[in-house]
């Protein structure tokens, strides 16, 4: 790495807190639509394959504090995550796993995604949620809520089923990400500091007792 001492001499004043959330899951489950829906407030009319990593953000307010929520929307194809996406796992505060309720394979891939996060030293300390998308296609569902809930429980994650598309769920998508943001805000600031390094051996520093548990408001 190049040294850049001269650039770091004048640090900017403290800014609003930033929550960095990575959104992962198989190709075509709707990661782009979900993140777009949250950040732009509407369903995008045309989305294409995400190549590499896209970035979206939204400023929210919780208890009078302005917080920047950064969503990193990742490519679903396996080859991208193997060598490309890992840069973006660094310093992540929360993880959103997405599957498509009409696509059983996308649900069966979840253990691999979870393992992927584990390998990037994102363990149980980092809040994780599971989102089953495309609920507007309930008739074509291939993954039952029961099965998904069991899976979520076994990995200590809250489950949300939603639709990025259906207008009725407008607030729902928002609520999901807000839940994550509340959870992050309630953590001690220490929990939002960076992991020591990316060598995969040093675990995240555990903040003091995690109070309040995980409140799933939906």
């Amino acid at each position, binding site marked *: *790495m*190049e040294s*850049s001492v001269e*650039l*770091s001499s004048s640090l*900017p004043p403290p800014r609003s807190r*930033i929550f*960095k959330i990575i959104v992962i899951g198989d*190709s*075509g489950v709707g990661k782009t639509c979900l993140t777009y829906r949250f950040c732009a407030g509407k369903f995008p009319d*045309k*989305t*294409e*394959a*995400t*190549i*590499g*990593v*896209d*970035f979206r*953000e939204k400023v929210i307010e919780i208890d009078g504090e302005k917080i920047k929520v*950064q969503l990193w929307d990742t*490519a*679903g*194809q396996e*080859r*991208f995550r*193997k*060598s*490309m*996406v890992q*840069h*973006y796992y660094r310093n992540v505060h929360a993880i959103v796993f997405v599957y498509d309720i009409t696509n059983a394979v996308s649900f069966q891939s979840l253990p691999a995604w979870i393992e992927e996060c584990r390998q990037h030293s994102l363990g149980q300390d980092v809040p994780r949620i599971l989102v089953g998308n495309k609920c507007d296609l309930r008739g074509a569902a291939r993954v039952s809520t029961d099965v998904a809930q069991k899976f979520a429980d076994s990995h200590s994650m809250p489950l949300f089923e939603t639709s990025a598309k259906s207008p009725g769920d407008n607030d729902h998508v928002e609520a999901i990400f807000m839940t994550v943001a509340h959870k992050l805000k309630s953590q001690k600031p220490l929990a939002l500091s960076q992991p020591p390094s990316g060598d995969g051996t040093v675990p995240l520093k555990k903040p003091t007792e995690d109070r309040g548990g995980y409140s799933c408001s939906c």
Partner: protein
Amino acid sequence: MDMRKSRSESGASPLDGGSGRHHDWDSKRRRKMAEISQALSVTPVDVATLRRMAISEGGLLSDEIRRKVWPKLLNVQMDNLPEKPGEELRVNNKDYNQVLLDVRRSLRRFPPGMPDEQREGLQEELIDIILHVLQRNPQLHYYQGYHDIVVTFLLVVGERLATILVEKLSTHHLRDFMDPTMDNTKHILNYLMPIIDRVNPEVHDFMQQAEVGTIFALSWLITWFGHVLSDFRHVVRLYDFFLACHPLMPIYFAAVIVLYREEEVLECECDMASVHHLLSQIPQDLPYELLISRAGDLFVQFPPSELAREAAAQQEERTAASTFKDFELASTQQRPDTVLRRRRKEQVVAGREPGAVPKVAAGVVAVVRPRARRFVRLAVMGLTVALGAAALAVVNTALEWAPKLDLQLFP
């Protein structure tokens, strides 16, 4: 297939100048078309001239010309066009689902206003081309973004010709992207920062400090900008350029875009998210002709062989560029850039003004040893003027830049 005609055949000047300039461009354009016809009519076809035409201002001018010249640039014979593939192509193909998914949602790649029925027909053809090439080349692996490249060929040359052009391209220019993993693609991205460093160390250091990485340029590289530019005319203009050049030229072009936006970059908040966000949103009104010429200049000044060590150092693996060695488009042109290989980094640092955009002349002065090489410098500049700087980038073979070439060129 009329839609193909009207897409990118605007007669407007690429410089968007006033009417006087427009008139100039009209006559230039006519001259260029004549030159291209001439190069096509001789036996064997004058590929070197076609290459120069594809690089120089305006590129290949129209899709009609592209249909004739692109196959020559790829050294493809047109007498053996593939048959329309059968249904079996879609059965038991490991990539079929991913291809289907990506093509079905690639609506933006088709001209606005195209009837749905026509677009859907083209999408089916697109799927067929991709699967056909993959089936015939089991060593190639589909990646998301490949469809963005193939659709450009489909729209310009039609299904049958696109199939053979894309096959050739896939086993050459795109070869590294289609490995089982993206390690080689990552390696190619590692050329980006060293190029930026040579031209503007301030921008380089800023980006390093922000830890922005290079993924913002991933889609640029592996789709040849087809994924990120909304105006199809710009896409095909770039394809003219890239088809005529070394497979690494897209990464030089990526560097040129970053450097063109140096002020915006330096004004950006110095963190990964802000810089990634800024750079990944490519402005749609870029001055393409200018940037193409700059990319050509940079390629000549800092050829891949120069940057290879630094690029390799960015990750401890050595890979990629060597796979280009078998590229068949060996050009017989001389390579004035080989004389630039020996410049030392200190000299560059001493010779460049911080924040300045590179001009080829200044760059050449900076990179050549002051005394012993002065005669060389004049020779290079002479060629630069004669060919247009970007045309030097025609040195598209990735064959090693053997020292003996220095002797051949300047005995």
